[in-house]
């Protein structure tokens, strides 16, 4: 399938007739739709799915009283033929699908296909649609499966086996098994061998017994899948519902911290006060001493006193015109003479010794004072720094608490909603656990009964073979048995090859796309994707969101590649090739921007058309990587939503042009839920 255009009329946010052309050029195969939330991007994907499969009927929210009819038409080509799929629904009735063949020359309808749904399912089987229409971040029904795509689930396994053509072989094996059993039963009956008939009767009884147990198991397995999808959906909701709880918890954690900091602050301030009071004297002495010194003396400290009998000291005193005690010395004065004589006198007289010892005393006191001052100053600074730190912590935490208060007020009371979701998850988990137990119990019974049947079958065949009968029925049973055995054995081997091929494709895609040292293996039992760090060889227990998105997108591309004609030559298992555009809602939101270009190339290797639906901010991140591949560019320039008391106009430079994206309130309160309206324009 290659889409040419879609005409959407009155579907969800699309009022009136809205036509979109899709990029079909091989060199520019990407159609890009950019717009804000609620603008109709996801509705475009849902319109395509609804038109082709008629699902999601509950999602249609057109205003029935005003617009009773809603319709979507897709023009597409398939196997060199042109078609138009057209689905229409009128209020209160079931939807109606028509598939029309279109004349290539004049574009007119040239006939109608009898079984449209069956034919479309032949083009793109419904089981495979989720691989082609990929909700990378959406909340639609398929997104739950998409969310845990890498964890392995029945959905992935079944879809992949379907793509690889194995589900059809499963059916063939089942048919051959049934035929084999029926024929063996007929042979026993025909042979009138009482012993063999006895065993056959027991086998029949067991098979009758087996049927309801198998039904129970299938039903339990379906329940498990259904619950799992619902749980995943609810968990997504849970993750996306803003909760005040962590904010309140943070607030509750910060408030005591603020209180404790305030207490510590008070203590420190008290300590600071008493410290200053206790040690003020020493600071004053220091100041007093330093005050009576000349700047030079102050600078050199007690050095001048250290050698009082030095003649240089006298020169210094003379040069400064001041004695060390602060007395002014006038050259030639008696004071000058006295000082000079005193300092230059070499005799060890009593006065000089007294002076020297006094000078040393002063020196000691001053150095002690200096040390004390230094110590106290250090301590004083430490106390001050502590106070500054505490004050800063209090300020930061108080600001955070104020912000948390505002956030909590803004979010409002969603806790009851969250509790309800959590309760629902718990209820569903209990149901799932019960279903698991039922399935396991049924599975054990099925195994036991099947073993008994196999044993009885052997006994029956032994009893049956005792007689010599080489009729055509025996020959047929032998043939059927051989064919069944061959198909089973070959399928097992084929599955190994198919899965290995997929793993090789996936690793090549990841390698082309990412610089990260990662490689993947797909578990043959669960189909879960296991990721290994190639530098250490260890399995990575948890992946970051960017790597997850990268691997998921590559996996989607590779699965589509396996299904599509592009890889048909390589994929010999496929029952029927399927090709269709890949549509991705919200792509590349978490992926490393350096990987996006490679990822787009990988996607385009696997499909002929790529349709991307992005938020403006997300698109801006990867515009440079895809711009040259864009064949069609659309912007949601206007979205009317329900009254949310907001009117938002955002200016963007999209597709290298200035574009305003406008989100309006809708004033018609009667239609608060149902009336939405979008205007999407092509940007050329």
């Amino acid at each position: 399938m290659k889409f040419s255009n879609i005409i959407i009329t009155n579907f969800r946010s699309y009022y009136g007739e809205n036509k979109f052309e899709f990029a079909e050029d091989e060199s520019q195969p990407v159609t890009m739709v950019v717009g804000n939330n609620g603008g109709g991007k996801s509705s475009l994907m849902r319109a395509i799915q609804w038109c082709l499969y008629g699902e999601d009927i509950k999602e249609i929210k057109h205003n029935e009283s005003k617009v009773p009819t809603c319709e979507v038409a897709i023009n597409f080509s398939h196997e060199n033929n042109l078609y138009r799929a057209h689905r229409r629904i009128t209020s209160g009735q079931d939807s109606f699908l028509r598939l029309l063949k279109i004349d290539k020359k004049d574009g007119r309808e040239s006939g109608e296909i009898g079984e449209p749904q069956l034919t479309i399912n032949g083009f793109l089987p419904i089981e495979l649609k989720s691989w082609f229409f990929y909700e990378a971040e959406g909340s639609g029904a398929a997104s739950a499966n998409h969310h845990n795509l890498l964890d392995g689930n029945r959905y992935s396994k079944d879809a992949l086996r379907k793509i690889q053509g194995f589900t059809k072989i499963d059916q063939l094996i089942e048919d051959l098994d049934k035929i084999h059993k029926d024929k063996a039963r007929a042979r026993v009956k025909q042979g009138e061998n009482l012993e063999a008939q006895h065993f056959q009767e027991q086998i029949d009884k067991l098979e009758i017994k087996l049927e309801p147990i198998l039904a129970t198991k299938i039903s339990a397995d379906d329940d498990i899948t259904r619950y799992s999808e619902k749980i995943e959906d609810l968990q997504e909701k849970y993750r996306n519902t803003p909760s005040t709880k962590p904010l309140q918890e943070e607030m509750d954690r910060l408030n005591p911290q603020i209180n404790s900091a305030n207490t510590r602050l008070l203590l420190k301030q008290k300590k600071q006060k008493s410290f200053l009071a206790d040690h003020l004297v020493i600071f004053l002495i220091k100041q007093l001493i330093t005050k009576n010194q000349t700047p030079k003396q102050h600078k050199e400290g007690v050095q001048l006193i250290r050698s009082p009998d030095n003649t240089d000291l006298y020169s210094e005193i003379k040069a400064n015109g001041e004695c060390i005690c602060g007395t002014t010395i006038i050259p030639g004065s008696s004071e000058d003479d006295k000082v000079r004589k005193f300092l230059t006198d070499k005799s060890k007289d009593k006065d000089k010794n007294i002076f020297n010892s006094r000078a040393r005393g002063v020196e000691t006191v001053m150095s002690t004072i200096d040390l004390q001052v230094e110590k106290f100053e250090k301590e004083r600074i430490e106390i001050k720094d502590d106070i500054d730190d505490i004050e800063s912590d209090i300020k930061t935490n108080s600001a955070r608490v104020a912000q948390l208060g505002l956030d909590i007020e803004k979010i409002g009371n969603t806790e009851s909603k969250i509790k309800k979701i959590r309760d629902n998850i718990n209820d569903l988990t209990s149901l799932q656990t019960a279903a698991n137990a039922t399935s396991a119990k049924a599975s054990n019974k099925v195994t036991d009964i099947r073993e008994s049947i196999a044993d009885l079958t052997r006994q029956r065949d032994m009893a049956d073979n005792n007689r010599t009968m080489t009729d055509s029925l025996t020959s047929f049973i032998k043939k059927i048995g051989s064919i069944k055995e061959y198909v089973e054995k070959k399928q097992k081997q084929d599955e190994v090859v198919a899965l290995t091929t997929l793993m090789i494709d996936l690793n090549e895609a990841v390698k082309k796309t990412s610089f990260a040292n990662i490689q993947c293996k797909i578990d043959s039992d669960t189909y879960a994707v296991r990721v290994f760090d190639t530098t250490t060889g260890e399995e990575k227990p948890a992946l970051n969101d960017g790597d997850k998105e990268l691997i998921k997108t590559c996996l989607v591309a590779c699965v589509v590649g396996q299904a599509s004609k592009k890889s048909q030559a390589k994929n010999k298992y496929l029952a029927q090739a399927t090709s269709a555009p890949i549509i991705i809602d919200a792509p590349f939101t978490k992926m490393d921007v350096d990987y996006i270009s490679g990822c787009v190339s990988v996607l385009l290797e696997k499909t002929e058309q790529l349709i991307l639906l992005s938020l403006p901010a997300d698109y801006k991140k990867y515009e440079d990587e895809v711009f040259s591949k864009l064949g069609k560019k659309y912007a949601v320039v206007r979205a009317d939503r329900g009254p949310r008391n907001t009117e938002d106009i955002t200016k963007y430079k999209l597709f290298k042009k200035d574009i305003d994206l406008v989100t309006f309130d809708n004033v018609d309160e009667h239609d608060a839920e149902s009336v939405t309206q979008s205007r999407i324009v092509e940007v050329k």
Partner: protein
Amino acid sequence: MPETDILKELKEAEKKADRELIDKPIFNELVQDLLTLDDSSDTKRRDKIIQMIETRKDLDEI
């Protein structure tokens, strides 16, 4: 572990599986034909399978 180990390992596994793949042309052809039978009713489909196998005389040799 060198970077290409898993890929190398997978390619070798694919080759090995491919080499060991059992292949009986007579059965392959029949299976391809059987897979084309597309009938929503199990009974009708199984009748067609029986018919198809019964008419294939070349299967008598197996």
